[in-house]
């Protein structure tokens, strides 16, 4: 048997221990059709058997924006003066949404897909990648909604400034979803062994949102809290996004801030991939 294997070309080699970062790009390309199918499934099946159907994509951010406008804008009066509140809150909600879906959708990858992972093989990372792609689509639709509001304000002559940094939108998206994916991958490994983390996901994301400038501009954050806000990469992206599409009163564009956010995202992603890779080999024995 051994001498035969020397001159054979094997397509598949299954060994006990893999490298701690094992991303087989060639294999992923082979499975690109599967990725697209999963993305389609994620987008189509979520709103199957609902009356409003795809309208739900925009109902959620609109409702959140309305609530924030009422609670934080009119009652607590936290929104920046002289700016359209709808744009301010919608921008925060849409940006936060991209991070939050990338994170929550991936945080329970192994548990939710246990039945399919237990029966068939495909590169497990396809599932998180498809979730992220689906959340891009989701973000795209919501961004169009934001543009609709923006153009209304531009046409009616409200003081809204759109700057060139808007071209960095793809970078904003990559950081938001990449950071969400990274944290999601870490959580997906943790939730496999400790279900406790599952309960922290929903609640934790809500709490975390109040530590980003979604509901109030960074300038109104008390000085003591500034550092906590700035430690979160999402903060810098929301600020830059608002600067780019609403104006400098809504947010600040900081190269260092974005650089920090991008660096942090890469580190978290790296850790996430390693943990995911380690978990996927044997998780089916422990769940």
């Amino acid at each position, binding site marked *: 048997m051994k001498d035969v294997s020397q001159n054979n070309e094997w397509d598949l080699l*299954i060994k*006990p221990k893999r490298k701690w970062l094992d991303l087989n790009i060639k294999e992923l390309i082979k499975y690109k*059709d*599967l990725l697209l199918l999963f993305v389609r499934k994620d987008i189509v099946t979520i709103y199957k058997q609902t009356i409003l159907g795809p309208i739900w994509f925009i109902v959620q951010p609109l409702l959140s924006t309305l609530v924030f406008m009422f609670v934080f804008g009119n009652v607590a009066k936290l929104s920046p003066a002289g700016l359209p509140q709808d744009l301010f809150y919608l921008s925060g909600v849409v940006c936060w949404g991209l991070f939050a879906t990338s994170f929550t959708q991936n945080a329970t990858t192994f548990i939710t897909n246990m039945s*399919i992972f237990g*029966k068939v093989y495909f590169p497990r990372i396809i599932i998180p990648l498809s979730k992220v792609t689906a959340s891009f689509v989701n973000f795209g639709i919501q961004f169009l909604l934001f543009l609709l509001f923006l153009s209304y304000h531009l046409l009616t002559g409200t003081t809204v400034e759109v700057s060139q940094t808007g071209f960095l939108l793809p970078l904003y998206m990559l950081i938001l979803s990449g950071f969400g994916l990274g944290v999601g991958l870490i959580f997906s490994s943790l939730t496999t062994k400790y279900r*406790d983390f599952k309960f922290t996901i929903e609640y934790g994301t809500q709490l975390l949102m109040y530590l980003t400038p979604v509901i109030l501009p960074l300038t109104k954050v008390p000085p003591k809290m500034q550092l906590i806000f700035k430690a979160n990469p999402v903060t810098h992206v929301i600020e830059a996004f608002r600067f780019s599409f609403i104006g400098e009163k809504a947010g600040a564009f900081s190269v260092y801030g974005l650089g920090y956010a991008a660096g942090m995202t890469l580190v978290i992603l790296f850790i996430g991939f390693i943990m995911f890779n380690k978990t996927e080999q044997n998780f089916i*024995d*422990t769940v």
Partner: protein
Amino acid sequence: MGQNILEIENLSKLYRLGEVGTGTLSQDLNRWWAKSRGKDDPYSKVGQLNDRSGNAKSDFVWALKDINLSMKPGEVLGIIGKNGAGKSTLLKLISRITAPTTGEIRAKGRIASLLEVGTGMNQEMTARENIFLNGAILGMSKIEIRKKFDDIIDFAGCAMYVDTPIKRFSSGMRVRLGFAVAAFLEPEILIVDEVLAVGDAEFQKRAVGKIKDVSNSEGRTVMFVSHNMSSVKNICDRGIVLKQGQHIYSGTANEAVDFYMSEYSDLATAELALRDDRKGGTHFRFSQLSIMDNNGRQTSEAISGESLTLKIDYKKLKNLSLDQGFISTVILDKYENIVAVFRSDEMGFTLKDNSPAGSMGSIKLEIPRLYLRAEEYYIRLIAHESRPRPDNVLDYIDNAFQLNITAGDLWEIGSPNKPGNSSIFPASYSPV
């Protein structure tokens, strides 16, 4: 053809028993607390040792140990063993669902596994979408799947429901679709685990035909796990027997089945000497009943349409001159309906035994062909001192033995007959 398509070398899989119970952080903290006080792990009892009889001696158990195996294109390998022998673990390792602890698997081409029914089917998605999804899971492109699409729908017989979500399918349709997808998407290696246990007889027949087709004409390799010995004999060229994670036998499919049956011959014998739920038994006592196949080997399972021999051992407890002893063997179904009676008085056999008290003897009942469908049956043994009458019973044991009959190729048409309680007679249909 000479080259191997699959090679398995020193493959082992270790399971840690202590981890089986792990679910939440609190349990792990609890375990750590117990350990730090020098107590036993409170959750380690959850696990099971692979020989299932005794308690676990260590926290680890080898679900699979040092398996070596190689397969060539077109071969059909049957994997047999009791529950917990490691069959499913082996298939899981080959299908890359979990990683091995030691050893290596080398394969060429795609591996499609059909572990349980409806593998990788999404309930919300339609049949069409599921076919594409399953094809994509195998790493196929859309174009490749489109070529096979009509064949799959045809085999599954669900042309009307192509655009209906799977969740509205009957379970039988789901099974057919799942099998069709895996069989028609042309994997180089097809892994089939117990799928034939479900579905109706017609589907089973077609599935068996398709598996043979896949291996014979398309030259693909099939690994087949089943508890149904007649389908292993029918489909496979080669067979291996696993026991407690170890590879204990390999040979042709027929040899492997025979070996497996004799390996578990302890199931083939019923000790009757100490049974007290009997009538009589004071002078003459049935002591043992065992079943044997046509080669005279003890076996645990009888196959419909094949021969069966019952060996009845008895012991004389007191001096008794038997010149006109008669034995009756009754086969009952699980509802206690009598399905067959073998009375030695009407079959022209008389038991003559004048040996002294304490001596033992044996009788055998040979059934050349078992005309009974696959089902559980029970055997009742009766001995009479003379011509059978209610008042001359020597020994009477109800439920002396549970006879498990598995489906077999009774009609000699290449596929097993249907299970059920009824008996069958030799018969045939033909046009007049």
